[in-house]
């Protein structure tokens, strides 16, 4: 079924529940209405890690009895013949190919008259090689540690509410897809939570839908009279949130049923974690070529790039569709987040990156921000001391988000992201160098690559061909496709039976040719803050 299936709704009837494409989920969302009230039923098809004892008798909500169940099969069953061999082979191939090309660049392009271009070419390859190597051989999913029931029993911080989770979602004019989002929260296996939706002055029927769920006692709703933007909307929710753990998602995203449960377990067992990022993929991947391309792209951005940063506990961007923060780590900085300004003007983008930045730079920004917003209730109510938080990424916690399915929407989204990226160079960039050397060095290199990208593209695709070197464009694009292929193979390792990897090189080419020049447009219009989703 099409995930964006039209939702029929009239005021006097109960809206039908979301009937989405279920193939994404390990168990699928139970469609029956009763399931809303029976999260802990033994019939729950999702068979979560954290679950009640299965017995004939109805179980009390409290106290919890922990029991390790048989390991749930992952999205892709382990019993694929040759999967392990393929995984080894692809990993070896990626390393070998990058080493061979890297050495080739070092040795055979040493006659490049421009030292900068030589270093650029060499470092692009070796950064990729290092990131690939670390993410494949060194990354450990923090969820793995929570598989041990004894550990869970010891570490989980009972009694509540220290593990009470506040799920917060800002909504603005999403009548078509909001039900899907609400349902995915209601289907969560984790019981001890509140779900707060903030209606950011929607003008369509979003408010009615939210109100209906609220009237059933399933969620809490805050209605804003004026459109304030995502940051201020979530700020309002946080003021009344009860949980020690803040779980954010986007209105266009859907969560795996065990998402809240797994992330809470991790946060409970890892007191050093200030925030946690989930693994995000495209919800509408099957729609067309563009969405497939993006889906394959997301996979690499998370399971390669974020995994690399996670090894050093310094994920630089906890992405919106599944972002878990510890109240302690961000609460005092919320006023600074809400009132973020850049070039003397309110800056509405860069929600995820800036919030992540507060956790990363806690020690550096703490005193300044608390002083600046001393009168704010977020600071007055309680004073959390700054700490050296780490931020991890958990590959096994899944969320799916709607990706732009037309080029216009895609370009608009990318402009927004580029603006956030630029804004954040001047925030996270000011203290990220304190992180472990490798990850911070690569962070600044990455900034340099992004800024230089358009010029390199211009040189190889326009300047050199115009000066008689027609081959350079072909060779350059081959090189780009080659980098894309490396991510392709990394994707194929993760999903051995999927053919999505074929779309990844196209994303690299598309990104290089069309997206990198958007940097200029983003720079020129960075003061233009209008957020539209296309």
């Amino acid at each position, binding site marked *: 079924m099409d995930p964006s299936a039209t939702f029929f709704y009239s005021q006097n009837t109960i809206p039908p529940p979301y009937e989405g494409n279920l193939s994404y989920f390990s168990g699928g969302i139970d469609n029956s209405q009763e399931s809303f009230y029976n999260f802990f039923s033994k019939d729950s098809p999702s068979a979560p890690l954290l679950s009640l004892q299965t017995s004939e008798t109805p179980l009390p909500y409290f106290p919890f009895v922990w029991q390790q169940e048989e390991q749930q099969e992952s999205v892709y069953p382990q019993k694929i013949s040759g*999967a392990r061999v393929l995984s080894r082979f692809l990993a070896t191939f990626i390393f070998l190919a990058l080493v061979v090309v890297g050495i*080739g660049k070092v040795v*055979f392009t040493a006659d490049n008259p421009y030292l900068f271009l030589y270093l650029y070419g060499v470092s692009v390859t070796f950064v990729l090689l290092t990131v690939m190597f670390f993410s494949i051989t060194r990354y450990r999913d923090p969820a793995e540690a929570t598989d041990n029931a004894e550990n869970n029993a010891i570490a989980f911080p009972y009694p509540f509410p220290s593990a009470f989770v506040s799920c917060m979602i800002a909504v603005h004019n999403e009548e078509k897809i909001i039900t899907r989002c609400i349902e995915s929260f209601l289907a969560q296996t984790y019981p001890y939570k509140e779900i707060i939706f903030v209606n950011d002055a929607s003008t369509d029927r979003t408010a009615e839908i939210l109100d209906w769920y609220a009237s059933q006692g399933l969620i809490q709703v805050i209605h804003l009279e004026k459109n304030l933007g995502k940051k201020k909307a979530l700020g309002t929710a946080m003021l009344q949130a009860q949980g020690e753990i803040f779980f954010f998602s986007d209105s266009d995203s859907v969560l795996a049923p065990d998402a809240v449960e797994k992330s809470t377990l991790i946060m409970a067992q890892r007191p050093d974690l200030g925030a946690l990022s989930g693994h995000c993929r495209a919800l509408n991947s099957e729609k067309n070529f563009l969405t497939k391309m993006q889906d394959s792209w997301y996979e690499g951005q998370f399971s390669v790039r974020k995994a690399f940063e996670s090894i050093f506990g310094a994920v630089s961007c906890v992405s919106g569709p599944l972002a878990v923060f510890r109240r302690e780590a961000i609460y005092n900085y919320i006023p600074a987040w809400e009132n973020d300004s850049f070039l003397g003007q309110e800056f509405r983008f860069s929600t995820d990156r800036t919030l992540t930045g507060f956790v990363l730079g806690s020690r550096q920004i703490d005193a300044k921000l608390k002083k600046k917003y001393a009168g704010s209730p977020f600071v007055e109510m309680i004073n959390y001391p700054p700490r050296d938080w780490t931020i991890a990424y958990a590959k096994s916690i899944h969320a799916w988000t709607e990706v732009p399915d037309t080029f216009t929407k895609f370009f608009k989204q990318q402009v927004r992201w580029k603006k956030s990226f630029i804004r954040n160079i001047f925030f996270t960039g000011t203290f990220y160098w304190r992180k472990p050397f490798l990850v911070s060095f690569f962070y600044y290199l990455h900034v340099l690559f992004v800024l230089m990208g358009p010029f390199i593209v211009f040189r190889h695709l326009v300047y050199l061909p115009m000066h008689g070197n027609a081959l350079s464009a072909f060779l350059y694009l*081959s090189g780009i496709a*080659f980098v894309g*292929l490396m991510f392709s193979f990394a994707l194929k390792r993760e999903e051995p*039976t999927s053919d999505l990897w074929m779309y990844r090189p196209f994303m690299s080419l598309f990104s290089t040719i069309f997206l990198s020049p958007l940097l200029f447009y983003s720079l020129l219009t960075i003061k233009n803050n209008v957020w539209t989703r296309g």
Partner: protein
Amino acid sequence: MDTRIIKKREIGFLFIAFIICAVVVLKYYNPMYLETFGKQSLLQFAYFKYIIQMEITPKPKTAIPEAAPDSLKTIPILLYHGISTNKTQSGVNGEGRTVLLKDFESQMFALHAAGYRTITLAQFVAFREGKAHLPDKPIMITFDDAIKTSYYRADPIFHALGYNAIMFTISGHALGAPSRYYLSKSELKTMIRSGRWQVESHGDLSHQSIPTNATGIHGNFLSNKMYREKNRSGTQNPGLETTAEYQARITSDLESAKNSLEKAFGIQIIGFAFPFNDFGQATKNFPGSGNIILPVASSIYPLLFYQAWTETGYSQNYSYEQSPLVKRIEVPPNTSGTELLEKIEQGETKNLPFSDSFNQNRGWLEMWGSATIKNKQLVISSSDTDSASVFLDGTGYWTNYDFSASTNWIAGKDLEMEAHLKNNQNFLSCLFQAGGGVYAKETKNNTSEILKDVFPPEGVPHGNHTFGIAVDGNKVSCFIDGDAIVSGESDGTLAEGGIGIKTWDPETGGAHVNIEQVLVSTTSPSQP
């Protein structure tokens, strides 16, 4: 659920993926790069070998004389072609002009040990303009034709010694079809980038020969008119091209050589070396070609390099020369390092006062006739001509001096003592005629003018006498046995130059002079 790892639709794409990987790998590991890489590695290897060789060679501990000021230095420019490791290919046995590698090594290390350091063409230009800062002993090394062996065998030596060189490149070969003999464009680029090589022009196609008459005799491109067969459409009669066509042909060749090299390497070309050292001398059908080649070439290139011969004067370059022509010394194939060093040192500026008893050759060069040093005498004889001429190399900066020679004049009609000599066409002289007069002469551009003459009553005798010439400003005086015979006033344009001796007799082989000693001393300042 489909659990197959590879589906049909993925196979085609895997093939594309393979091609992409192959393209990217081949981009860096293509055979051309690999070959270059291999050769460059060998160069590095040879370089270290020479560095070690230099370290273990004992350094001579000779006192270094104080260097002359830059404006009084002379610059020798050496010329090589290819370098061979094999005697049968080298000029020693074969017809080629290539030098043996072991000779070349010995020459370069001898030069370096003697204190010679290479200068660039820009420094040479500045030297002529009087603005250069030169090493104590400047030298230039040039190669013609851009042959692969020149680069691959000489470069590690230059690298080790800190030398640089000029490669006169035939653009038609270097930028044309790939060759196993000539250096390619990319190799030349690598050379330029190393900073040890400078590329200049050796013509585009002008290193070829052209038909010069109907029988198919070929001659040099630059100095001959081309003979053309009847063309196919029959609109053109067979015959030699016109002078205008000739001029257009050589102009276009020299221009295209300059332009294509400048474009290919992004450099400025200011030097041109004449192919076959021929700017009119070796013509077969156009005796006036020299009068066209030189103006055409000098309008395109500020510096024209040629291999000097003795009639053109000193073997090295002087700072006062304004002509575009630059002299080079072509190193003969079987020359050892010491021999070359001796030859170069003979051409260097000699200090005044100067005396020579002919224990060894200190730079006497014969222009024509025969001049040899034996039994501590300089023997000058017109053995197979009617005259003989000899001059002393390395004296071109001398000015205002007395030059006297203790002479045993055996036979001949004339004996001419030359001073302020620049070459065989420009000098001041005293002509002593046996049994006749004494003439003070000034010769400019091969035109002699008698400044003053005197006819002593007893005539000028053969036998043992001391003949002399003194130049002091404009005054040219002639002496026999220390007695001033005659003096005249020159116009002063020949303000400096060296010494030479000439003898003549109407009969072939009739002149014979033995010089026993030569003394040259600065003229004492004349009293006002």
